[in-house]
């Protein structure tokens, strides 16, 4: 798993990042995006999804949808702020479980 932890000069505001693969059948469509946004809204940390240079705030379902991530897309995730590590872990779990889809 390629997670790197970076600490800024103050040594507290840690940024966490990872590459995640969209591996459900329909891609980041309404239901999957809704799950991500709901999860992001439960965390204080700022979560940014990035694909081909386009960025989306994970708290915004519309921004997630607007990335247009079909199945098999690789998404770069950056998390910054309070409890960033936990937020990233939860997000990774959500991706791994294919957003709870059967």
């Amino acid at each position, binding site marked *: 798993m390629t997670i790197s932890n970076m600490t800024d000069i103050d040594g507290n505001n840690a940024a966490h990042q990872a590459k995640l693969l969209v591996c459900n059948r329909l891609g980041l469509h309404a*239901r999957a995006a809704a799950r991500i946004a709901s999860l992001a809204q439960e965390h204080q940390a700022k979560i940014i999804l990035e694909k081909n240079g386009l960025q989306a705030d994970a708290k915004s*379902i519309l921004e997630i949808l607007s990335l*247009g991530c079909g199945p098999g897309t690789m998404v770069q995730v950056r998390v910054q702020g309070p409890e960033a590590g936990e937020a990233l872990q939860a997000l990774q779990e959500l991706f791994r479980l294919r957003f709870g889809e059967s």
Partner: protein
Amino acid sequence: MAPEAWPQNKVLKGIAASPGIIIAPAHVLADRNRVQVFYRYLGSRHQVAEEQERFREAIIRTQQELSRSKEAIPEDFREHAYIVDTHLLILQDRLLLDETLRLIQEETINAEWALKQAVKEAQKLFGQIADSYIRSRVQDIEDVSERIMRHLTGTNPSSFTNFKEPVIIVAQNLSPVDTTQMSLERVQGFITEMGGKTSHIAIMAQSLRIPAVVGLENAVREIDTGYTLVLDGLSGTVIINPDVETMSIYLGRKKQFENFKAEINRSSFLPAVTLDDYPTRILANIEFQDELDLVLDYGADGIGLYRTEFLYLRQHYLPTEEELFEDYKTVAHIMKPKPVTIRTLDIGGDKFASYSQYVHEMNPALGLRAIRFSLKEQQVFRSQLRAILRASAFGAVRIMFPLISGVQEVLAARQMLEEIKAELRQEGLTFDSQIPVGVMIEVPAAVMLADLLAQEADFFSIGTNDLIQYALAIDRGNKYVAEMYQPLHPAVLRMVKHVVDTAHAADIPVAMCGEMAGDPLYTPILLGLGVDELSMNVTSIPVVKRIVRMATLEEAKEFANQVLQLGSIDAVTSLVTNFMARRFPEVFMFGRELVNSNY
């Protein structure tokens, strides 16, 4: 307007969204027209805060309305509740909420106009998305904004009365939230002006098994409440106030369709045997373990293609042998004694982060993928082969190698398989030492070498998607040539014949697992050419089985021979169409629609 002045027998064409035929009176949701929105400049700055407050209140009321409708969703349709959740999230989304508040402030304009601008921006953003399914989700934004607009302008949302009589709902647009607000037991069909095959309403109608036609322009203008409608969700046709003759034609068609549907569902479990007792096998293609329920439901004779890529794509590390083993073992065990055909990895190196040096292939279809990748990255391949072999102790597992283009590749792969068998024996692990090994025929070179490959294989499986692409040099993703991708191309048919004849001469069976195998239009030809096993998506199984059970091997052979005489796609297509319409009229009329929907 008096009934005698109503339009008679008027035919409208839309998009077939959910199969079935229904004749019932229309109920038009006329007040679903868009709320008229006007621009208003706020006289003074201090009105900004007031306007923003008014907008926030509308949001809260919309939120309450959505939450109520979510609670009202009947138990049976709970799976659709997520759509309401989606709408609740969109309602709070910063692209709508913050953007509207910002526009009210910065441009000193009314909330309605500001919201309209925010929606426009979102539409623009979505218009650029390549994925058509995700792109069409712009409809959700429009639904939500329409709802807010109604609260802003005080336009009463239409109350969905509980219909006393069966009706066909006609509307400009229907959100799934709307459908949860009506008494569905009386709703016989849906007609909407908006939407396409992947719109929520289409998906919803399919899962509710209610016929639907969408994308029917001017439906609301052309149809009035009380009109009698024929709704044909198979062809996308709507007929307004049909005359007696038309009505009886459609009643006949409806009956035919329903009989056909009942019949194929009944016979889906019966063996795929022709009228003259020739047994063939209909298997399923799957990608995920959780599809097994469907495989069993549809009466498949086994799994003809288990795609194994998923476990490799799921994580950023390679799956362990144990993970693979557990997965294959479960599938083998559930399907036992029916066969499970596991295809080894069929992806390109570009999918592996750790092999990113391969990412920039000019032409991935011709690149390092499938068996080529497996033979190069032997550690990856070995662990998969070990997992498959170990799983073979728990069911009727078969293994097949994709994208074989020469004998050497088969020999190399088999050599590794033998080494691993020896390893497992030493470790005292059990496996099926006679595990059948298949070669996929999907490269023209493999067709030409079929006689030699047959010496090294226990069975063939023709992968038509790739074979057609490589043989005809057509990239289906390229819209300029996509139409030339033709399974009925004489060259393709001759290749299939050659492969089957060669395999049978060497006494090994031939399967087919591409899309061609699951299209009912091709079933008689494939049967006649002697393909022993057809493997397809589960939804194709009942229809294809139906054809097999209604056909005789003798006529299929004769038909295949006739087809092989023809030199052009057009000639083949017209012969096939003709034959199917004559010999299997119901399949011809309804079969493909059923295969393509979630039935």
